[in-house]
């Protein structure tokens, strides 16, 4: 099992290296090996490959040139070395992940294995993997989405000169995410976490020729880095407190650790989670990350980067459960993120940015689920969101490539020309909004249900009634214990060890209410912006100047394939008690969604050519700029830091550098003084020698 899991990680990793090292060569070899080329390579117009402002992050070569290349790429899959090196191992990894998931499903339980133990002198580092239900399912989702993205990229990036390294980075990205998912050790998890950060940097800045793109990449890297520092220290705190970095050990020993330690560790971890999962206040990198190619956005948003944050919270849930402070912070941040970014999504003109803000919002929904103790529901939503967000981004990529623009106002009336994309995207948007019976409805509804429960019933764990061991009940229980004087902590530890079910300390009532209301508002807003996106893209008249037709087959069918899990994934949740939809909350959510979507439709219906967001009036620029958070950061953080940096540079120039140079100059001058006697005149040399001899002789004589 562990071997299979490690193979799953290693395959994309090796694929990445193969892609880096011999991608293009492989392609040449394959082309030379083929007896007859399938057709003459379309003559390349050198002027066509011009890197201007790139819509959708693809090299803008003109729709025709790109389509021809894409068709060639999909017709000759066996001659595309980098694509083969990327897709085949990914497919194998997907199969392996499926086997792992199936085995775990058949016989649930946690399996852990240690590959090697690295002694560090104090706390050893265990290079080990850990497979349980959570890891297996998430890994399967990651593999599926990554495979879809890889296959889609074959056509999407057909004209890209650096496709080889691009595909290799996707493989590396996936391998890193799988490492995070399967890791059994906190430090190993951190390794994957950091590799993802680097990969995101490279991929977002794939078209670094454009200064804006490389800036976006740097921003993503730095902002997530900010969170990662906290994350690393949180790991240290946990590992040292528990005396081991193994996740299961850490979770087992959390109850014995002091409350403050755990709370601080949880808050530090939250910083990393907020950075990676793009939660307020570290969310600003995500919309800018849209500078990368669209499949990368799909990968980052659906499968890897942002999912990692939520996944880690679920993985280390025990740490967060111990104190309500961390959960409260998580909940409040989630509410701010989800409502704020949903409002921002309402006013975006760029289709990718709409989806980006939608991702922030949906991740916040998951975080809210975690905050109210609905771990399973949150993970369920993570899975469904992975499916439908990947679908939405890939479909958006098709639309962008066909239309040659990122902007919603250039689209319109695409439903006839792109039926497959239209249908797929409809499914995806329905899942996003939460329309029954598509997957998103089930997952979102279970989160809302949990939040409602928390808000109405207070301190009761909605998922595990058997383990309702909130703090309030502890004294009663300890009173029943035969051994008097048993510290409560031991009790908690034992109950945790016996039943791994969550011990939910509960968030304060106001937080639960806030989360609940935030979720409901978000549902309405989500419906509104999804409807706006849907209507503006596929209905009305075509507003841009392009020839609407269906995307290349390989892209369209990949998108369509993703529509299947987006549609039906929800039914898998019916097996679990806590994931089943509940009538009350479901109706309420549906009503709100209908309200939002209906509002958007009414606004749009008045003038199908205009943007419904125009009705927002003076609020629109505020929403479009995401409440000017970027401007705020620029003024509060970026500029002072730059000023400080300039100050440091000046101090370095005038102080340290001058001192160093001065030292050098002083040494030279001193050397010049010493050099004066060395003038090349042998007479002075001889004078020195003889004077020395005389002095020595005189000293000897005198001392005699």
């Amino acid at each position, binding site marked *: 099992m562990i071997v299979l899991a490690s193979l799953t990680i290693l395959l994309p990793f090796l694929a990445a290296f193969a892609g880096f090292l011999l991608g293009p060569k492989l392609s040449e070899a394959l082309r030379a090996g083929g007896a007859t080329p399938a057709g003459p390579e379309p003559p390349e117009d050198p002027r066509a490959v011009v890197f201007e402002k790139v819509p959708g992050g693809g090299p803008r070569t003109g729709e025709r040139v790109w389509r021809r290349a894409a068709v060639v790429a999909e017709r000759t899959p066996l001659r595309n070395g980098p694509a083969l090196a990327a897709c085949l191992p990914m497919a194998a990894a997907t199969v392996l992940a499926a086997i792992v998931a199936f085995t775990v499903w058949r016989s649930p339980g946690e399996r852990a294995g240690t590959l090697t133990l690295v002694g560090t002198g104090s706390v050893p580092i265990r290079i080990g993997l850990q497979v349980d239900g959570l890891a297996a399912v998430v890994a399967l989702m990651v593999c599926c989405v990554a495979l879809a993205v890889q296959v889609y990229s074959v056509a999407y990036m057909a004209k890209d000169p650096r496709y080889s390294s691009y595909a290799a980075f996707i493989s590396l990205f996936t391998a890193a995410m799988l490492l995070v998912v399967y890791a059994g050790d906190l430090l190993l998890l951190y390794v994957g976490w950091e590799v993802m950060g680097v990969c995101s940097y490279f991929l977002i800045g794939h078209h670094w020729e454009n200064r804006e793109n490389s800036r976006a990449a740097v921003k993503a890297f730095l902002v997530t880095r900010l969170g990662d520092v906290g994350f690393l220290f949180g790991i240290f705190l946990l590992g040292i407190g528990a005396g081991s970095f193994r996740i299961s050990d850490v979770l087992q020993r959390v109850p014995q650790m002091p409350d403050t330690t755990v709370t601080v560790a949880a808050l530090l971890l939250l910083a990393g989670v907020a950075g990676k999962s793009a939660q307020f206040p570290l969310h600003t990198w995500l919309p800018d990350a849209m500078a990368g190619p669209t499949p990368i956005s799909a990968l980052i948003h659906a499968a890897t980067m942002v999912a990692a944050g939520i996944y880690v919270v679920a993985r280390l849930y025990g740490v967060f459960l111990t104190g309500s402070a961390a959960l409260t912070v998580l909940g409040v941040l989630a509410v701010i993120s989800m409502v704020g970014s949903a409002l921002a999504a309402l006013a975006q003109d760029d289709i990718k940015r709409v989806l980006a803000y939608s991702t922030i919002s949906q991740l916040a929904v998951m975080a809210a689920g975690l905050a109210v103790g609905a771990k399973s529901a949150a993970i369920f939503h993570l899975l469904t969101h992975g499916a439908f967000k990947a679908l939405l981004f890939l479909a958006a990529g098709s639309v962008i490539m066909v239309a040659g623009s990122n902007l919603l106002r250039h689209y319109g009336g695409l439903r006839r020309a792109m039926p497959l994309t239209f249908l797929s995207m409809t499914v995806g948007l329905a899942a996003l909004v939460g329309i029954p019976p598509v997957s998103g409805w089930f997952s979102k509804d279970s989160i809302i249900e949990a939040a409602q429960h928390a808000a109405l019933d207070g301190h009761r764990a909605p998922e595990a009634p058997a383990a309702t061991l909130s703090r309030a009940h502890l004294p009663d229980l300890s009173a029943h214990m035969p051994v008097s004087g048993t510290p409560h902590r031991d009790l908690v530890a034992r109950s945790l060890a016996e039943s791994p079910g969550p011990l939910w300390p509960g968030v304060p009532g106001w937080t639960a209410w806030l989360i609940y209301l935030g979720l409901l508002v978000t549902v309405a807003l989500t419906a509104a912006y999804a409807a706006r996106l849907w209507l503006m893209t596929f209905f009305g008249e075509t507003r841009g100047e392009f020839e609407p037709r269906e995307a290349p087959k390989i892209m369209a069918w990949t998108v369509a394939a993703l529509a299947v899990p987006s549609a039906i994934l929800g039914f898998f949740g019916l097996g679990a008690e806590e994931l089943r939809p509940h009538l009350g909350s479901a109706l309420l959510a549906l009503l709100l969604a209908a309200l939002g979507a209906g509002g958007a439709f009414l606004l749009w219906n008045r003038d199908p050519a205009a943007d419904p967001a125009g009705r927002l009036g003076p609020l629109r620029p505020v929403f479009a700029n995401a409440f000017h958070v970027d401007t705020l950061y620029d003024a509060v953080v970026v500029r002072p830091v730059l000023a400080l940096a300039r100050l440091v540079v000046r101090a370095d120039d005038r102080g340290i550098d001058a001192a160093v140079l001065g030292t050098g100059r002083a040494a030279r001058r001193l050397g010049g003084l010493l050099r004066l006697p060395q003038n090349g*005149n042998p*007479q*002075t040399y001889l*004078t020195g020698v*003889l*004077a020395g001899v*005389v*002095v020595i*002789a*005189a000293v000897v*004589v005198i001392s005699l």
Partner: protein
Amino acid sequence: MTGPEVVFTLLGVVAVGSGIMVVTTRQLVHAALWLVVSFGALAGGYLVLTAEFVAWVQVLIYVGAVVVLLLFGIMLTRAPIGESEDLDSGNRWVALGVALATAGVLVTVLVMGFRDAYTPLKGDQGAAEGLGASIFRTWVLPFEVLSVLLLAALVGAIVLSRSDIGPQDPASGNGKGNR
């Protein structure tokens, strides 16, 4: 103070005085001539010390050969015959200090060490007969080695002074050849 001591003191004063003239005179040729005087006075000193053979060799080789050689050198380097102002380098005063210090140390040491040493002078110590016997009996090997050394010096001098062999261009005598 005995008679030989008086004579030796006079000869010593002449030798030292003419030596000072050698290193201070402003005329090159005069320096060579003062050198002759100094060497001659020294030869007289050898005679007083009963080293007759050494004294004659001194006169023959130093006064006869070496000084002539030096005069040839002066001639071949086209040194100015009259007075020249710049025969002393800027190092003069330092050199004077070092020389005085040397003299001080040496004289002090010698006087301290041999204040009471007295040598009765007898006539047979420096005779040519005894010296010759000693050279060709006891010191014959160094003597032969010395002859080889002389030969080597001879060859070396020839090689150095001939301008038509070696890497140097015979036509170039303008100060750039050996750089």
